[in-house]
């Protein structure tokens, strides 16, 4: 498994971080706004944001005054595509498995 995907999956493997990402799908936010729904401290939220930044999932706009954190979807698309390729790969094969089994069944003269 690629290292980038491991980083993405590890970043997603925490409920607080996933909640942060979901909030960011509604639009950019400040660190304080992101921390607001949680019972944890601001340093803890900052630590989570750092993990998300390192995974490339959150971009901190240093120059924007009021909305410094935003979501970057590219790593999620990579993760989606990575899993999707296997789904397609096996899906196609299972179609052909069905055709092969059906041909075998008809060869045997079974009538269903």
């Amino acid at each position, binding site marked *: *498994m690629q290292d980038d995907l*491991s980083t993405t*999956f*590890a970043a*997603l*493997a*925490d*409920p607080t971080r*996933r909640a942060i990402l*979901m909030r960011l*799908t509604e*639009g950019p936010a400040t660190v304080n706004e992101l921390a607001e729904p949680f019972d944890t401290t601001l340093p803890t939220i900052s630590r989570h944001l750092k993990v998300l930044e390192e995974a490339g999932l959150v971009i901190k706009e240093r120059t924007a005054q009021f909305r410094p954190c935003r*979501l970057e*979807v590219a790593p*999620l*698309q990579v*993760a*989606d595509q990575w*899993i999707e390729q*296997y*789904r397609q790969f*096996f*899906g*196609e*094969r*299972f179609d*052909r*498995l*069905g*055709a*092969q*089994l*059906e041909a*075998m*069944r008809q060869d045997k003269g079974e009538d*269903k």
Partner: protein
Amino acid sequence: MNNPAQKRGFTVTRTYQVPPQIVFAAWTDPKQLGWFFNPGMPVEREPEVDLRVGGAWRLLMVEREDKSYVTGGIYREIDPPGRLVFNFGAVGGWPDLSAGLEDALLVTLEFNAIPEGTEMVCRLDVPSHVSDARAKEWFDMGIEGGWTQTVDRLKLG
């Protein structure tokens, strides 16, 4: 210890009008693995099947004259006719299992007898270095399609 039943991949279910042992044979008899190749793909080498735990099944996939790779699996559980589990890939192939099986995709097949014949349930599990509880929550959030919808929402927004 990770519980392999926790969902962190995807599940595909198919119904076939033959008994489970026939479907099981289609997966494990080297002479019946033709369905695994792409349509029109030349079979330059007969599939190899070493049907034992730790053994490998290997197919040479020839996509073009200059592009071929070995795929297949390394068996983890063999319980005919109802259950077959393997790590997907091949040593030196695609996906490459040279680094070992711990980070490898796991395919779990159930061949369930139903009135119509066989219900084949195929689950593919993502590598298990993420703990069960966190992975479960991640999938509850909707890795299957959910993130795609999230991405689509963002494109519109």
